[in-house]
């Protein structure tokens, strides 16, 4: 029953009377904090935080997934840094993050602006959101139908006189194709979020712009961008986190519909991690795989923190 003493110590009676009402609310909030946040926090700690520390621990070992673990210090990390395939995979992750990310944001923002005063915008919004609803696996299968040597693309090109069409699915072309597919899949999603931000700008700002004789660029620069900046920030963090996790589309795109390991040119850090632990064709290296995962997590954390810093602006209330 010692708990009863705790709320008392910080109870509103000790504070000045005018703050009593607000203080009581704050006090109630404080008391509800534990029952409301506690379970979620507990689950989060048990299911996410503890495993992260577990992963860090495993990453300092040599371990085949079962059986004995042997301490290997930072050997796994040293191996990763020395492995050109890991560097290449990390490079691909960064390509997805920045190249695809910038393409998505430019397109989404442009679409959000165009759709703002377009007729039938609700229908258009649903249509451009649709690719995001389709499972990535579908694109993996579809790409075979379209780009196989006897596929749709070449069948269309043939009557047009193209006798030597590009080798669409050659290993070196797969990653660019994956990048294009990611843009196609994700643009609608961010357009929808950005449109919500753009829509919330009250019309009188635009009227003001019209009265002041501002052109479209000035309107964008001085009204739309500042007022949607916080939405941008959230989207950037969302994309950073989700781009680092991209996995299944690469697995299916280049891996003969999942029967083998995709070609190394298309690996991202996530695929590298998976192959190291679960390819099934060789003795699993859980230590090296967790090291790769921990390094990726570290990278994401740094990027998110940096991004938040760069994107930080005072939120404009309106």
């Amino acid at each position, binding site marked *: 029953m010692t708990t*009863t003493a705790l709320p008392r110590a910080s109870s509103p009676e000790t504070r000045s009377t005018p703050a009593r009402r607000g203080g009581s609310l704050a006090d109630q909030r404080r008391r509800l904090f534990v029952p409301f946040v506690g379970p979620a926090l507990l689950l989060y700690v048990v299911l996410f935080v503890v495993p992260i520390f577990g992963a860090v621990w495993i990453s300092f070992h040599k371990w085949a997934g079962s059986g*004995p673990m042997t301490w290997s210090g930072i050997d796994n990390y040293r191996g990763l840094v020395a492995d050109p395939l890991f560097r290449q995979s990390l490079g691909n992750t960064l390509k997805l993050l920045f190249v695809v990310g910038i393409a998505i944001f430019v397109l989404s923002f442009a679409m959000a602006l165009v759709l703002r005063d377009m007729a039938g915008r609700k229908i258009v919004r649903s249509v451009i959101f649709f690719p995001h609803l389709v499972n990535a696996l579908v694109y993996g299968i579809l790409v075979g139908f379209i780009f196989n040597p*006897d596929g749709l693309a070449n069948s269309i090109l043939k009557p047009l006189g193209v006798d030597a069409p590009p080798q669409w*699915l050659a290993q070196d072309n797969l990653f660019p194709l994956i990048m294009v597919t990611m843009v196609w899949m994700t643009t609608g999603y961010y357009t929808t979020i950005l449109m919500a931000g753009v829509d919330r700008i009250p019309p009188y700002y635009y009227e003001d712009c019209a009265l002041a004789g501002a052109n479209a660029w000035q309107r964008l620069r001085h009204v739309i961008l500042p007022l949607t900046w916080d939405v941008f920030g959230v989207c950037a963090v969302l994309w950073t986190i989700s781009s680092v996790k991209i996995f299944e589309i690469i697995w299916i795109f280049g891996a003969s519909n999942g029967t083998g390991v995709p070609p190394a040119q298309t690996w991202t850090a996530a695929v590298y991690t998976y192959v190291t632990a679960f390819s*099934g064709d060789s003795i699993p290296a859980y230590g090296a795989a967790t090291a790769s995962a921990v390094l990726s997590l570290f990278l994401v954390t740094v990027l998110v923190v940096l991004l938040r810093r760069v994107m930080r602006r005072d939120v404009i209330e309106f």
Partner: protein
Amino acid sequence: MATRVGRARWSTRLAAGVAAAVALALTGCSGSAAEQSGKEFTYWSMWKSGEPQQKVLADAIADFEQQHNVKIKVQWQGRTNLQKLVPALNTNDVPDLVDGPYLKMYPALAATKQALGLGEAYATQVDGKPAGELIPAKLLQNINIKYPDGQPWMLPYQIQSDAVWFNAAKHPELKTNPPKTWGEFIALLDRLKAAGETPIAADGDVAGYNAAYFGTMVLRESGPGALMKLASDKSGAAWDDPAVLDAAKKVEQLVKGGYFIKGYQASKFPAQQQKWANNGAALMFMGSWMPTESASYAAAGFEFGSFPFPTTGSQDSQRADVLGFAVPKKAKNAKLAQEFAAFFLGKKYQDASGAEAKMLPIRSDATTAPELADVKATLDNASAYHQQLDGVAFPGYNEKVLSPNDDELFLGKISAEQFVSKMKAAQIAYWKTQN
């Protein structure tokens, strides 16, 4: 005040309740295994529901359940069953029986000594003989399915081999007079090409299939064990062996000769295999599962014929990968699981595997499907055997060292010399990170 005390109590109780629920949920998964009686066991199968081999296994399970009055809790997991097994081995909820090919079973179970010695299964009487005697010893000359103490950790029930496949209805001459040497093989390819037929189909996006060419070529040059020796050389000097370069040159010869089907570098499996089954190419080098896998889309009147991969010298070993059962050490119903493993070697199920599932049963007296008659005859007459890629399974070696470089060779991006020097460098770097 009373209400506040009540609320505080309520909140502590709630928090405690949630904590207890979470704790229960977390430990709950380990409880079920302990409750199992001795009269049932769990089997994680590499086969998926509906596959021909799965149907044969399901029949055997039904018979075994009836005869022994037990319940087999089977999960038709498909080919990733062993990848799922590895993390499960760290819990108390472990299946009693799993199956898979040696190449996947060894890394998942045997390398870490997590598989049980199957002495009991080998001693179980099947059709009047101990099960162990039904497994032809000559197949296991170069596949070590035993622990150092002599206990076998795997009970094979099937063989997987490979061959060069063709449509015997279209090319009856290959059935009567197949090419035996490399020279005859190249001559055949040239003849096919001259006749306007695409010589060889290949799905170049499957790294394992691509590597089968170089791998088999090395084994043809230097015999079983050569690829293992090559891959395990930490100094990389083994790559300087002229025989290795010669093996790579022969792959290059196929690529540069333009014998492969157009677009094999840029297609998705099984596009080229489908083309082959519809007479889009004459030959395809593939595993013994070819007739089962491509029967559904093969052209009307297609007749599966095959001949062994040509020889390049005196070595002529045949691929014989064994596929079978294993029991994890942690299994709670290991005895029953071993009994069933042996039971499946019964003639009835071995015959059904051969005739209905069109697989190669491990028992040499079992029925074989007509499509596999050539492969079976070759295996029976062979003097030596090897595994796919010679059983090389060092952590990450196949995926990160061999496949990326071999793909470049097979897809025509680099020459044989470049391949050998890249492999040498990559292998030296690989072994440095493994110490």
